[in-house]
């Protein structure tokens, strides 16, 4: 009986094999197709959900134009776009050394949040009592320190007992959230739920409020690129990431590298927190990091853990984000629109990696024919 079945389907329908390599233009073409398909899918979902679009299908062009307008519509929007890109990129950069070490730091959110909290705590207690420059420095120190502490705790347990870091760092995010609400309760005695903007501890404007943050993150990007590729520390991180046993074999103390790298990772998250606290918000809420710690994981991964490529991926996510925010404004839909849009596009881009890494051969074609089909 089984012979009969086999006679009908002699070969598997599709057959996969891993590519040895792929030409970069080809890879980019695949990603671009994925992006376009993702945007089409966004349109379809929006058609179901956005009443104004359903009633006026002719506004579909307008709908897509929002993606450009959201980020580049006015010069203020553009500056805002660059600054949000910088902050997101900063967190993504912070996570990258850990990821290169195969330490899945899902705690960027919490590490950033305690960074904000540290800076605001200093600001809250010392603001106005000491010179502004000293205050800013102390805030920076507090941010870096709290970020580093939040990052190093899971690292210590990973180094010592190989405790699962993905889950540990994930849990640390929520500990951070409730730590913030704890301090908010203490700081706001009258029961009001939010801390009003503090007057002191504001980063100086460099021409405008945006440029300084952007320059800091740009410098950080270049610095991290050099650190990861041209220094001994960066090399050790790559070796540990590839194989712990190789690292031990050549005399690298793995625990030390894990801890050192996570201090760096947490510290840079703390820096992002500082930029949010001193450069933008002047206050702290449980939402200060706003999910960017999670988005940054995707930015870093999409950028293949390459700091320079991450400028592009962070830019893409920010364009989508602000575009979708523009849509929710213009088409009068819920403010949750951006995360939905980003989610849909990510599905397509994540999926497209498969076509970059694998070759597909269809039934009835030889291996060569299969290759052609993909091309």
């Amino acid at each position, binding site marked *: 009986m*089984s012979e009969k079945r086999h006679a009908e389907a002699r070969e598997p329908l599709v057959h996969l094999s*891993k590519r040895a390599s792929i030409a970069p233009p080809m890879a980019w073409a695949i990603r671009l197709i994925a992006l376009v398909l993702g945007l089409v899918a966004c349109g379809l979902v929006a058609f179901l959900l956005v009443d104004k679009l359903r009633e006026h299908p002719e506004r579909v062009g307008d709908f897509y134009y929002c993606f450009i307008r959201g980020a580049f519509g006015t010069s203020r929007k553009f500056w805002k776009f660059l600054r949000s890109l910088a902050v997101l990129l900063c967190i993504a950069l912070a996570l990258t050394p850990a990821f290169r070490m195969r330490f899945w730091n899902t705690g960027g959110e919490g590490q950033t949040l305690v960074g904000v909290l540290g800076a605001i705590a200093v600001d809250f207690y010392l603001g106005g009592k000491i010179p502004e420059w000293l205050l800013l420095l102390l805030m920076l120190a507090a941010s870096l320190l709290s970020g580093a502490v939040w990052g190093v705790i899971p690292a210590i347990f990973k180094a010592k007992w190989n405790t699962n870091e993905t889950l540990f760092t994930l849990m640390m995010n929520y500990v951070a959230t409730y730590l913030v609400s704890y301090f908010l309760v203490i700081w706001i005695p009258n029961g009001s739920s939010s801390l009003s903007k503090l007057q002191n501890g504001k980063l100086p404007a460099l021409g405008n409020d945006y440029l300084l943050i952007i320059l800091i993150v740009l410098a950080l990007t270049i610095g991290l690129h050099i650190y990861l590729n*041209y220094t*001994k520390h960066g090399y050790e991180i790559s070796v540990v990431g590839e194989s712990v046993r*190789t690292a031990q*074999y050549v005399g690298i103390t793995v625990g030390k590298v894990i801890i050192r790298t996570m201090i760096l990772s947490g510290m840079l998250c703390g820096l992002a927190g500082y930029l949010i606290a001193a450069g933008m918000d002047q206050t702290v809420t449980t939402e200060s990091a706003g999910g960017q710690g999670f988005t940054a994981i995707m930015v870093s991964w999409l950028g293949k853990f390459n700091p320079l490529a991450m400028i592009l991926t962070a830019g893409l996510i920010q364009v989508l984000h602000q575009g979708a925010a523009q849509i929710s404004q213009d088409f009068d839909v819920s403010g949750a629109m951006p995360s939905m849009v980003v989610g849909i596009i990510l599905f397509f881009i994540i999926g497209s990696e498969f076509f970059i890494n694998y070759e597909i051969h269809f039934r009835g074609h*030889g291996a060569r024919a299969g290759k052609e089909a993909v091309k």
Partner: protein
Amino acid sequence: MEKQLALQMKGITKRFGSVLANDHVDLDVYRGEILAVLGENGCGKTTLMNMIAGIYYPDEGQVLIDGQEVVIRSPKDAFDHKIGMIHQHFKLVDLFTAAENIVLGVREQGAYNLKEVNTRVAGIAERYGFHLDPAKKVYDMSVSEKQTVEIIKVLYRGADILILDEPTAVLTPQEITRLFNVLRRMKEDGKSIIIITHKLNEVLEVSDRVAILRKGEHIATVNTAETDEAALTEMMVGKKVDLNIDRPEPMNPAVRLEVRDLSLKNAEGIQVLRNISFEVRSGEILGIAGIAGSGQRELLESIAGLQPLESGEIIFHNPKKDKPVTFFHKSLKRVKELAAQDAFHDVNLNGVSFRGMSNKAIRKWVESGGVLFREDEIMNLRNKTPLEIRELGVRLSFVPEDRLGMGLVGSMGITDNMMLRSYRKGHAGFLDRKKPQALAEEIIRELEVVTPGVSTPVRRLSGGNVQKVLVGREIAFTPKVLMAAYPVRGLDINSSYTIYHLLNRQKENGVAVIFVGEDLDVLLALCDRILVMNGGAVTGVVDARQATKEEIGLMMTRTSREGREEDR
């Protein structure tokens, strides 16, 4: 008795990317026979068998069972056709018991009842003369117990065609004999048995027919009774090969490394090394024999500084008395430290002090050869990290068995892999890629490594080339002691001989070489002395020029007295 065809393969072709693993292979297997598939490592034996077992799918060709064409798309299809494969790397779930592993994937009527399964497994084990506790977890098992589970797993499914991939690699000669008896019993039962191997003596001992593969092509199938070792080798390699391995006499052997009473517990608290003592001499090759997992890996790792010892000493002897100090093996810092301990004298036998001298002046003095050692250097390496060992000036090279998981970084190019040993040198915090690149190019040239370039990830190279890169790097380090664990595993004959040659050259240069091997024939031909291990203890040291395989085989299973006490 009329021979009945069980399995036919016609024109089977398989490619991996641009590599042609099997090229139009034709093969017949009859009922009630043992067919050996013989070929060098990397000739496509395993790939071919994986296609019958449903792991890979052929690009071209047909498979016929009992004369009817079948398509095997998955292991499940293979089981449906009563084909079972015992892989070289066991496919068992560590966390499950033997019985759970055995019933895994079996479709049976009735409710799942583990007790009943246990009884049936015990039954099968008894019938074929295996010893197996069905409720034992796999992570508690020895290698040969795991193999037993694998074989019973296939029998439990009622397989008629059994494929065994290099089943003897992990067994002692005595266990091999027992396995072969089981195979013969199965053959009498009418089962077809395919055994993949690259060992000629086993082919001649157990098989009825031999199919020879070379570079993915089927060369011939011959009756075992009508052939001999020389003919098989010629077919396997494609030319007449001299299978003799050189063995120069050791020159001025002197103790170089001494291991005393070394004991070690692993991370799970299990005793893996028990009171090991031996010495290695300069200019000799010391072989280490034993069943896989007898503590060989742990022993080498202990010497290399990768394991925290429970007890014991590792003493390194450096015959330096009255010889000049060089910066070849020692840093300036180390030389200054030693001078402070009054370790040196000058040509007039007066003490040497560098006090008040500039680094430049010290350097000049040492390089002129005017600073000499007072005594032989004797250093204890116990519980020193690899880094500390290096800083002491002890040149200890180690070729680990897991090449891409330990010796090299698979995703990095040859240059970056050269750097593994030397990246700490110079340039403050930054890396220097110039010297490693020069070394990479030299190794590629000298050892004829086939690679597209110095930055191609080493993972993409063939096994032989990977090993050349690794051994090349370790030798470039001009070691005093060279430890190599299974350095020819998985290599074709030519690459293997390149490696033997490299080891012999080191031996002639006065290096103390430790060679952990699995093939007793090679150990007996290459080494000067052989140390035999079992259960983490030394069960004997023999002169390789006089010992026999049987003698060593017995030692491989003999339990030392301390061991027995621990086991009971």
